[in-house]
């Protein structure tokens, strides 16, 4: 899933300091799963902002709505009614950064603000802890690395690691970061595939990654 985290409250308060009435929109997709921008987080943020603004002596009116998804035009349409009926100064989105962009696209003259920092494609390790697993390079080859991704999980995206900074299973950039190449080595050892690791992996074709420009997938079989 897309993993995100809420921006610091100070940054949000600064973004909305000129506004008196806003619509705060959540998303029931990935950001609900990672506890960043679902219905619950929308409620918490709305309360926090209202309390802070009351303290400042300039109260703010905040309407709340949480959409099924913000990365699908049909759900964004559900904002038509509240936006047309209320004179919002701005719409705040608690989706990943796709959400505010969809809202901006749909509502040409409405100011839109992101409430989250979209962090990575990843998963949860334990309750309250998430980690990055994929960099969306567009040509998955993890089967060559014991099922682990060196592009996303090695600090240098090395294809022939581990580098000289691997120490005690940890990456040189931080004792908190696993050396994925150490994990790859151990797993391929268990799989009896260490001989595969002895081959030099040659140049990666990055055309399918962001380097090839913004990407688009067209499924002719699904297009109407």
């Amino acid at each position, binding site marked *: 899933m897309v993993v995100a985290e809420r921006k610091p409250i100070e940054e949000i308060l600064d973004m909305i300091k000129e506004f008196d009435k806003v619509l705060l929109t959540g998303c029931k997709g990935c950001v609900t799963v990672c506890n960043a921008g679902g219905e619950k987080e929308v409620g918490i943020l709305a309360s926090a902002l209202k309390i802070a603004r009351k303290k400042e002596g300039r109260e703010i009116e905040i309407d709340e709505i949480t959409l099924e998804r913000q990365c699908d035009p049909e759900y964004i349409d559900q904002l038509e009614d509240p936006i047309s009926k209320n004179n919002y100064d701005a719409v705040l989105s608690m989706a990943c950064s796709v959400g505010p962009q969809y809202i901006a696209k749909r509502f040409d003259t409405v100011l839109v603000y992101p409430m989250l920092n979209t962090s990575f494609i990843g998963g949860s390790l334990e309750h309250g802890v998430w980690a990055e697993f994929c960099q969306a390079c567009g040509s998955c080859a993890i089967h060559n690395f014991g099922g682990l991704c060196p592009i996303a999980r090695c600090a*240098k995206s090395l294809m022939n690691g581990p*580098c000289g900074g691997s*120490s005690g299973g940890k990456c040189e*950039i931080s004792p908190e970061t696993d050396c994925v190449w150490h994990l790859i*080595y151990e797993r391929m050892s268990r799989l009896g595939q260490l001989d595969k690791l*002895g081959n*030099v992996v040659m140049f990666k074709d990055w055309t399918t990654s962001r380097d090839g420009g913004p990407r688009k997938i067209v499924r002719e079989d699904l297009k109407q």
Partner: protein
Amino acid sequence: MKAGSNLEKMFAAGHFAVTGELGPPRGADAGHIHEKAKYLKGIVESVNVTDCQTAVVRMASMAVCRLLLDMGIEPNLQMVCRDRNRLAIQADLLGASALGIKNVLCLSGDHQKFGDHPQAKNVFDIDSMQLIATCKKMRDEGKLINDHECEGIPKFFIGAAVNPFADPFDFRVTRLKKKIDAGVDFLQTQCIYNMEKFRTYIQQANDLGLTEKCYIMAGITPLKSVGMARYMQKFVPGLDVPEDYITRLKGVDKKKQGDEGIKIAIEQIQEMKEMKGISGAHVMAIEWEERVEEIVSGAGLLPRPDVS
């Protein structure tokens, strides 16, 4: 001869080779280079010029290499993959060859997190293994990565680094082999302090016949003080400084710790000279270039043989 550099000739003639290292300044002062490099002239075959080492912005390695050539010193161009994509890397390699640079050392590069611009975007389009293969393809096939033929083929003596002390230890010799497979001619090791572990490593390489396929230079960095030794032991990932060297440094007067560090370096090189599979020493006297002559001389390696 692949490139005909002094370093290559020294190996080819069967001599125990010696290389040095020079870190460019964090500014545009060429005088700084002259000052440091003069201590290395005639003492080592060639001098590694680091490429923004520890991810700190410094004068470009290639420019410093050319300044060394002007001083009559052979450079080893260090090149990292952190700051350049395959376009820039190949362009720089062609330029380096045109400037008369014959030795290249292919490295991944320290992560920018350690440096003076941790906010930077890194590149890592290719890795050190693939950089070796790039140099080899350019030299042996006269082609770029995309198979375009070079007009004027760069001739490099291709080097890389290996760290016998990083983990997992059992994979380290495999990685050495991969560098040989990718096309490396010589390898310089990370600074060696744990001699026992290093002997095991070289024994493994010898057993696989790897030391006959490329020249391996033992990395030697003299310890200046107990403080430096402790720092390297605790804070430099992939370095292994055993307690006995620290005890030895502690055993002498504080002012003499540097001299003791030099003595240790000399003893290490003397052992390396006799070690099967080791073809030379890479002396990295960090900000201590003026003591390199003492080390090389103490190890009985001066004057350097003339192979020109």
